[in-house]
């Protein structure tokens, strides 16, 4: 704070001047950041169509080339272009992540609202299941589920989807329980509105934004876990250009000094995850200013 002296305090205007409109104000900056991240992610998603799959084919004359203008990410031991492989891998990871996170979110909405609205033993069962899932290391649970489904795309999807619903379920359950006890909801019930009407007019507008932000904030986790599973060999098949596969292959060629095989694909994955995180937190900030009051 500062004590700005403004002449004779006796005649100081009782109104402070409005602050000048700034172009880069918080609102605009937040919206633009979110839009930028969204655009980046769409680009990643569509990049395989733009880059084609030509770079994926073996070209023995161009083996193990370090990064250059023609091959910004270098080439691997079969002469495949690492940029093209990475973008294909990111896009694949993105699809898997999107699908798994969406499945998780659907589970969370169903289970969360069932637990909160039915209560009783249904609630006990669902919260118990959440506790159960949280009492195992996440990765061990992922491995167990992927193992029981025999790995592959089906195993990864199921493992990732089945292990990410817990947090959002808790959130939705708490939110609905809180809303249920709110006065205006009870008033609406007294006014003779049916449960469906109340759900549509009061619960949905409150819970939906939370679900959307929660879903977006799930993506980084689902994507990283898919990559982790594929990396240790329990995930996508070794023939797909998934990021986890690319990195585990890079492991085998590390000692030869081909550092670009591991550095760039991982960096690209990091940037994609960060873009999702930024998108989610910015949207969250728009809906709930307290989270970004600085």
């Amino acid at each position, binding site marked *: 704070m500062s004590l700005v002296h403004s002449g004779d305090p006796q005649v100081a205007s009782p109104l402070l001047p409005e602050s000048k409109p700034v172009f880069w104000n918080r609102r605009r900056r937040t919206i633009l950041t979110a839009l930028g991240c969204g655009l980046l992610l769409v680009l990643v998603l569509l990049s395989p169509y733009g880059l084609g799959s030509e770079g994926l084919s073996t070209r023995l004359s161009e083996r193990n080339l370090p990064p250059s203008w023609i091959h910004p990410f270098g080439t691997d031991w079969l002469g495949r272009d690492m940029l093209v492989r990475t973008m294909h891998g990111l896009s694949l990871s993105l699809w898997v992540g999107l699908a798994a996170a969406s499945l998780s979110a659907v589970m969370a909405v169903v289970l969360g609202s069932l637990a909160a609205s039915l209560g009783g033993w249904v609630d006990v069962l669902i919260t118990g299941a959440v506790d159960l899932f949280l009492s195992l290391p996440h990765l061990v649970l992922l491995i167990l589920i992927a193992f029981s489904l025999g790995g592959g795309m089906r195993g990864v999807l199921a493992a990732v989807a089945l292990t990410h619903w817990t947090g959002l379920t808790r959130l939705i359950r708490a939110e609905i329980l809180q809303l249920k006890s709110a006065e205006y909801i009870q008033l609406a019930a007294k006014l003779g509105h049916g449960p469906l009407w109340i759900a549509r007019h009061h619960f949905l507008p409150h819970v939906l934004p939370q679900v959307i932000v929660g879903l977006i904030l799930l993506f980084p986790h689902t994507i990283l876990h898919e990559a982790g599973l594929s990396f240790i060999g329990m995930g996508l098949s070794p023939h797909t250009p998934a990021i986890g596969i690319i990195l585990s292959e890079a492991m085998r060629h*590390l000692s030869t000094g081909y550092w670009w095989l*591991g550095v760039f694909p991982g960096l690209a994955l990091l940037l994609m995850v960060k873009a999702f995180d930024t998108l989610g937190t910015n949207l969250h900030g728009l809906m709930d200013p307290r989270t970004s009051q600085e």
Partner: protein
Amino acid sequence: MRGLSPRLVNFALRSALKLLALLLAVAVVSFVLIEHSPIDPVSAYIGADMLLIGPEQRQLIAERWGLDQPATTRFWRWLWQLAQGNLGTSSIFNQPVAQVIASRFATSFNLMFLAWVLSGLFGVGLGILAGAKPGSWPDRVIRLYAYTLASSPTFWVGLLLLILFSVQLGWAPFCCSQPPGIPTEAVTVWQRLHHLILPALTLSLIGVASIALHTRQKLVEILESDFVLFARAQGESTLGIIWHHGLRNIALPALTLQLASLSELFGGSVLAEQVFAYPGLGQATVQAALRSDVPLLLGIVLFSTVFVVVGNTLADLAYQVVDPRVRIGK
């Protein structure tokens, strides 16, 4: 010390019961999952020699293992064995599962403990540095670091460290927990530490992120609290406020968070051990899954549950013992 208060005895009993219930639930879920897996236990056990044995021999093995019994019967038998402490035999290591887990965990424990302590100390330190003045440049740098690491795949961070320190600089060994070709008894503490440093660094770099961000958040909350406002009104500086009130109020949540993060620590160690070929429990988990060693996988699932639940219980206990509002109140 006031000895074992009835409240603590009560707490211990409730925790033990909860752990048992959770273990039972985990056992049921894992059994159902494994039961539905497409893996044939007989062929998984025999492996490549499968082509050499005929259907009759197969049948014999299946009968000997009780595989012809209905699932519920097999479940109760398995549970009965578990209750007696028999986790079965690992097909990869040809040793009782309990023995494999014990020796592997001993190796992993060094790694996890070192990473746990490092990430706790650095995390709290960075969190305080960032939270002392929200919005300042140290805060921005630390938050950028923490958020970036929170989005980084553990195995990639390990990979980078490996490229930098082992391949390019040659400062750290490539793999394993000790130099090859030396009997375990002859390995010095320094050699062990030398092999431990990169995997532990990988694990702690990732762990730092969440503890730093939580400590920062907590400190920011504390600095906005009424009692800090009062300390300011008494003319105390920010440094003095952190010294007198900040540390006192941060310590417990930080300890609790670290104890509750054993789940991530275990998961992280699986990936870190995979990258550095560190022969701990994490690597055994991956091998058990890849090579269909069902008894070992189930054993690790149950063991890791105990590991995580013990961490959570200790976190609860810390509140019971340290926080005066819980200790004296109620």
